[in-house]
């Protein structure tokens, strides 16, 4: 019974934790402009994150080593350092976007200027990372993030023509007024948002925090292969609701309020309130995950003590990095930069950095000296190799597309 509860809790937090500011904004933008014609990108992205999260989780369970340990070990100090700099830049940008996302969500309720909320959010995130237990952060915010299910309810309440939606998704029916190059740009952005590297930094480090052993591999797989796809369904619901409400009015999404607009149209005030709760929980949870990921990765590269399973005083370097990155992220937002713009940039650069993270994981997950009988099988390797190619293409295409389409205009 306890086991069933643990698996269910893991799946629920994986659903709630899957969606972050990048998924919210990108799915709503794509939904409003392209409808469900990019549903296949979400599918490809979700399968990809499942494949690599499972690999990194398995490595963590078998060897007790988290992702950046593997990066340093296989790529050496030099390439590892370059990788660290690039990955941390992107994770930091995502961290900024998430804190900004929390502030924007709270602004929808409080109507106070967002710059007055940002410092408060920064302080709260840091206090939580410093004082709260790891499981508390993960479970409470993950479960509250489930409030985003209101988007699925909203789509159902809007009573769309289901067969038309399904046809649009299956036939990749791009609206005629959109160009293929903007389609490609948003496809890369959506893929980057689904496969953001911090998710595996956090997932594998979290596995080490919770002391996973080979016995936990089955539970971990259930979380990944049920939770993440259901999180992907939530992403699709956000896109579908945006298409149904914003699409006909030709509204393009450039604020968080517009992401929630379809729910308000479908379910009224209560629906919007639940959606905002979901926004706060999802972005707050992701802010904690990205903040921890910065600390995890830097500490893992240098070998310093990291993690919340020891008292903060015993992992001083780790907590110092978390404190400094929270301070810098807050300061960055106080320059009045638009968090939505930071989000858009962070998902595209995530796509560029994908191979840096996923290549070392694939190599180590195959090393029998490391993994013994738990090394990758044929299925994981076939998928891993296919995704290595897809990730490579997305990484190369991301920046040229960004310039060519002027960020999707």
């Amino acid at each position: 019974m306890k086991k069933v509860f643990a698996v269910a809790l893991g799946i629920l937090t994986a659903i709630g934790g899957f969606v972050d500011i990048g998924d919210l904004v990108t799915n709503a933008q794509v939904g409003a402009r392209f409808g469900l014609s990019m549903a296949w990108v979400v599918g490809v992205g979700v399968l990809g994150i499942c494949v690599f999260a499972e690999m990194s989780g398995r490595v963590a369970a078998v060897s007790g080593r988290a992702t950046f340990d593997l990066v340093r070990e296989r790529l050496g100090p030099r390439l590892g350092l370059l990788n660290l700099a690039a990955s941390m830049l992107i994770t930091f940008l995502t961290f900024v976007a998430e804190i900004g996302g929390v502030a924007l969500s709270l602004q929808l309720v409080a109507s106070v200027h967002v710059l007055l909320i940002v410092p408060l959010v920064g302080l709260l995130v840091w206090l939580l990372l410093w004082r709260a237990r790891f499981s508390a952060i993960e479970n409470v915010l993950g479960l509250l993030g489930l409030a985003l299910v209101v988007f699925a309810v909203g789509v159902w309440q809007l009573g769309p023509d289901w067969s038309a939606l399904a046809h649009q998704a299956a036939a990749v029916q791009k609206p005629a007024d959109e160009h293929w190059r903007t389609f490609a740009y948003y496809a890369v952005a959506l893929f980057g948002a689904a496969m953001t590297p911090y998710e595996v930094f956090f997932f594998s480090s979290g596995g080490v925090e919770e002391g996973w052993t080979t016995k936990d591999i089955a539970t971990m797989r259930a979380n990944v292969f049920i939770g993440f796809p259901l999180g992907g369904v939530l992403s699709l619901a956000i896109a579908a609701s945006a298409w149904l409400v914003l699409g006909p009015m030709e509204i393009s999404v450039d604020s968080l309020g517009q992401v929630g607009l379809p729910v308000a149209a479908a379910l009224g005030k209560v629906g919007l309130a639940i959606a905002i709760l979901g926004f706060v929980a999802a972005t707050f949870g992701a802010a904690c995950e990205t903040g921890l990921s910065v600390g995890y990765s830097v500490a893992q590269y240098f070998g310093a003590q990291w993690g919340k399973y020891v008292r903060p005083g015993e992992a001083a370097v780790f907590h110092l990095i978390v404190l400094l990155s929270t301070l810098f992220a807050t300061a960055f937002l106080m320059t009045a930069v638009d968090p939505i713009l930071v989000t858009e940039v962070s998902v595209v650069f995530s796509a560029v950095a994908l191979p840096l993270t996923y290549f070392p994981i694939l190599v180590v997950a195959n090393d029998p000296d490391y993994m013994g009988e738990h090394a990758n099988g044929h299925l994981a390797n076939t998928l891993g190799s296919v995704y290595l190619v897809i990730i490579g293409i997305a990484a190369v295409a991301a920046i040229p597309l960004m310039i060519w389409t002027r960020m999707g205009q």
Partner: protein
Amino acid sequence: MSDEQPRTRENRLTGPIDGALHLLDRQLIDSEGKLLGKVDDVELGSDSDGVSITALLTGPAALLSRLGGRLGSTLVERWGQLRVSEPHRTRPWRIDIDDVERLDSAVHLAVPRDGVLRRDRDGHRLGRLTGMDVLGPDGVWVGRVLDARFEPGAGGRLVLCSLIVGHGRPGSLLGYDRRSDQGPWVVRSLVRWLHRHTVIVDVDEAAISWAETTVTLRAVPHERPGHPFEKV
């Protein structure tokens, strides 16, 4: 935490290891399961039995010099300049190999981490051996030292037995040259093709010149490396 769970991996210190692949850049964990750094370099000592591993080196001074070439030595110099009043700042911290208990996916120490580090003595470093230019008997460039293989010798010391020589950088082998079945196929094929000139050289056939950072061979090598763990 990781070290409390039952490990299926054997202790590598009792068998042959490849220094760069199995030892460099591994996590250091103390007797209480606390983390204290990475194996930033490995100290090698030579005596009548040959070259053997005497200590693990850690800390910025060791890490920075491994960033390579002129950049590495400049950064070590700058690291010293940050606090000139501190003696031996550019010398890395060392942990004697006798304090190491076990090697698997990490290096486990037999002692707690508090105050375990000592300053480096004058010793050679594995991070300098890997990357050395290798010359044939006629002085022709053969390649670089990509990895160094050690075997347990007299007194339990890990003694240098052979060098893996090839084109490219140390670490770029990713372990793929050593085992025929390691997947995925795409990566294995690519790495093996890039390293098609890689050979293994017995240390008795090689003269290591630490001063000139070159290795001179007595015969042109042909033997391909095989994995030390692979049961033949």
